């Protein structure tokens, strides 16, 4: 989120460069006046966005902080100020911690395969396999499906009695597994479904980056006697660095938001090893009616995301420095 807003605000100074350009008359006005006028115009253009930004980001953010310090109920009852009680309760609520742990764990075990598989798939497709369009389509297709569809498909695949997954396991002589109903395995099952679902997007980013690497670099390397593997490690992978950073950032943020597929695949009920924090916020606020408490948990989660964000920014700026 922070990246996007930073980009947009970077647009603001642009009118200044237009001001200097030909075709815009500054005759009869001092430089300062023109600048002010242009700034006004810039603000006017920004106003609709600022309004929406204030209404849908700043105001809910501020109001949420207030709510988190009340015992506000979804039913309209409550609303009296109770200070930091909700935070104290949340910090001592074991479910908050287990669900944060689940979310972080999911982020780790989903981000790694989502980057690696995407990279391998893109490299394979980029080798010039015949039927390029078919590969691209097949890898990207699941990403186009709604989370509800994905959940339904995978709930049947993972069905412990008649699912395909167990059919394969038993064919090879393994014991069947209750994929979505066994603690600790449930989150891994959700991860498998998520990887299948979203890997196509990262694949596409990688493929685009691969196709941007100039062909002549490979030719030059070939002339110097570099084989395919040497080319991969010395030309391809280093040049994929920037896109890998983008993929990692996007993926980590997307994984932290885990909710829909987990909620749907677990039929709305979750075990202690699969409930993501967003679902616990939903359960506390919308099923348990405790808006104040749910707000407090979401700010604790928000703090976590800020920490991840700062960490990422530090890593990124260090890379840029290098």
């Amino acid at each position, binding site marked *: 989120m922070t990246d996007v807003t930073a980009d947009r605000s970077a647009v603001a100074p642009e009118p200044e460069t237009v001001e200097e350009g030909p075709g815009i008359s500054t005759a009869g006005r001092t430089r300062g006046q023109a600048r002010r006028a242009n700034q006004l115009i810039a603000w006017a253009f920004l106003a609709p966005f600022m309004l929406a930004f204030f209404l849908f980001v700043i105001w809910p953010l501020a109001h949420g902080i207030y709510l988190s310090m009340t015992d506000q*109920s*979804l039913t*309209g*009852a409550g609303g009296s100020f109770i200070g930091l009680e909700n935070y104290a309760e949340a910090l001592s609520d074991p479910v908050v911690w287990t669900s944060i742990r689940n979310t972080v764990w999911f982020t780790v075990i989903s981000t790694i395969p989502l980057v690696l598989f995407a990279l391998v798939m893109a490299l394979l497709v980029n080798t010039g396999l015949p039927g390029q369009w078919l590969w691209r389509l097949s890898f990207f297709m699941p990403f186009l499906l709604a989370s509800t569809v994905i959940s339904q498909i995978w709930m049947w695949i993972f069905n412990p009695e008649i699912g395909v997954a167990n059919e394969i396991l038993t064919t090879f002589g393994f014991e069947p597994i209750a994929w979505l*109903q066994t603690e600790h395995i449930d989150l891994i099952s959700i991860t498998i479904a998520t990887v299948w679902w979203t890997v196509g997007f990262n694949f596409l980013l990688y493929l685009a980056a691969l196709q941007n690497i100039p062909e002549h670099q490979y030719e030059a390397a070939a002339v110097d006697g570099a084989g395919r593997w040497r080319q991969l490690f010395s030309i391809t992978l280093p040049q994929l660095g920037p896109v890998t950073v983008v993929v990692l950032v996007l993926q980590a943020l997307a994984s932290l938001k885990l909710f829909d597929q987990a909620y749907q695949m677990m039929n709305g*009920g979750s075990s202690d090893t699969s409930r993501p924090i967003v679902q616990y916020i939903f359960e506390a606020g919308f099923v*348990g*009616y405790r808006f104040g408490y749910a707000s407090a948990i979401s700010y604790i989660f928000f703090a976590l995301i800020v920490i991840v964000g700062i960490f990422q920014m530090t890593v990124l700026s260090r890379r840029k420095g290098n």
Partner: protein
Amino acid sequence: MDRMQISRRQVLAGALGAASAMALAGCTAGGGTREAATVQFWHLLSGGDGITMQGLIDTINDAHQDFFIRPTVLAWGAPYYTKLAMAGAGGRAPELAVMHASRVPGYVPGGLLDPWDLNRLAELGVDESTFSEPIWEASQVDGELYSVALDAHPFIALYNTEICEEAGVLDSDGRLLRPDNPDDFLQMCREIAGVTGNHGLSYGFLADGTQMWRLFYGLYCQHGEQMSFSQTDGVDFNEDTFVAVLEFMSQLADGEIAARQGTIDFAIAEFAAQESGIHFTGVWELPTMREAGVPLGATMIPPIFGQEAVYADSHSFVLPHQMDPDDELRDYAYTFVAELLSNSLDWAGAGHIPAYQPIIEDPDYAELSPQAEYAEAADHIVYDPVAWFTGSGSNFVQDFGNIVGNTVVSGSGFDEAAENFRRHIEDILERPNPADPEETQI
């Protein structure tokens, strides 16, 4: 470039025109065709139930020129109760809504529901005498009537008459035997399993707190006991009974009697495919099984622990709280409910037991098979323990599933589960009802 821009504008203008035309058409279709007062009615009945309900609404709408019931169908479970609570909290709720009777006690303290006027109902032929005792009692909160039950939908045993006959577990009337102790019941299921070569019983429970609770609490109450959760008196339940029921449930899921890891979908598919003889399920699966061509019988779950007790809930009509109710619309809502109750024979077709006694006593109802076989269940119904946090689609049933789920699968840890359950309920009771944090109404 220019040409492209023009064509794009044209497309946009066209789309805008079409959209506004459609919007206008929508207006005339909704309001222009008849001059009737619109009564908003929310319910959560989808699938076969939804179609039956729509049929009943259409019949009543056709019979009345002065009002028009406009139903809004929302998804079953937690999302429905979220929306209904928010509508009630805003004071601009629909005139009428359907709720599970078990959720009503959680709604009343927050002032989300308005009570029914007994006199007006009596004028329309609806009063205490037209409901079975447990159903009428469950409709009351603090001595006022907050819900009018349409049905009771118990958790029962469907059985495949052909398979069960082959297994020799039908009585001389062709009905499933009703063993009155756990061993006989388990033995009966094994005999059925011998016939199917698969499982004797289909019961889906895996990671499904709702399904586990439905069977568990019915069996718990068969001991002649009920749980009670109260903010003043604390948690009251018998841990020995709790453990005995869990132990029995884990004996069911042994891979022979029922699947070790049966999910609700699997159990439905298995019984529909005639690969088992008995199906523990809600009556609402009846139409599905009939369509699947299963030769069907149905009975209350046998009194395995001695006494008859049937876990059930009711679809009940409630008046969501309105800041400024329109008397005329409210009155139409009363009329609609009364007429729907007296037409609820069709509702029984979907498997539910009509709550309205005159329908049960109707000779046409006695001819409904297999519905009439379990009509008696209405007298043995047990609902969820009364508390603000219990009921269909609540966090409570999910939490219950998380606490006991592993014990049913693994066959161990029952005592610990009972202890965890007690502690969990105590934790909830320590907190105020979020719908009424100041406890103004308790």
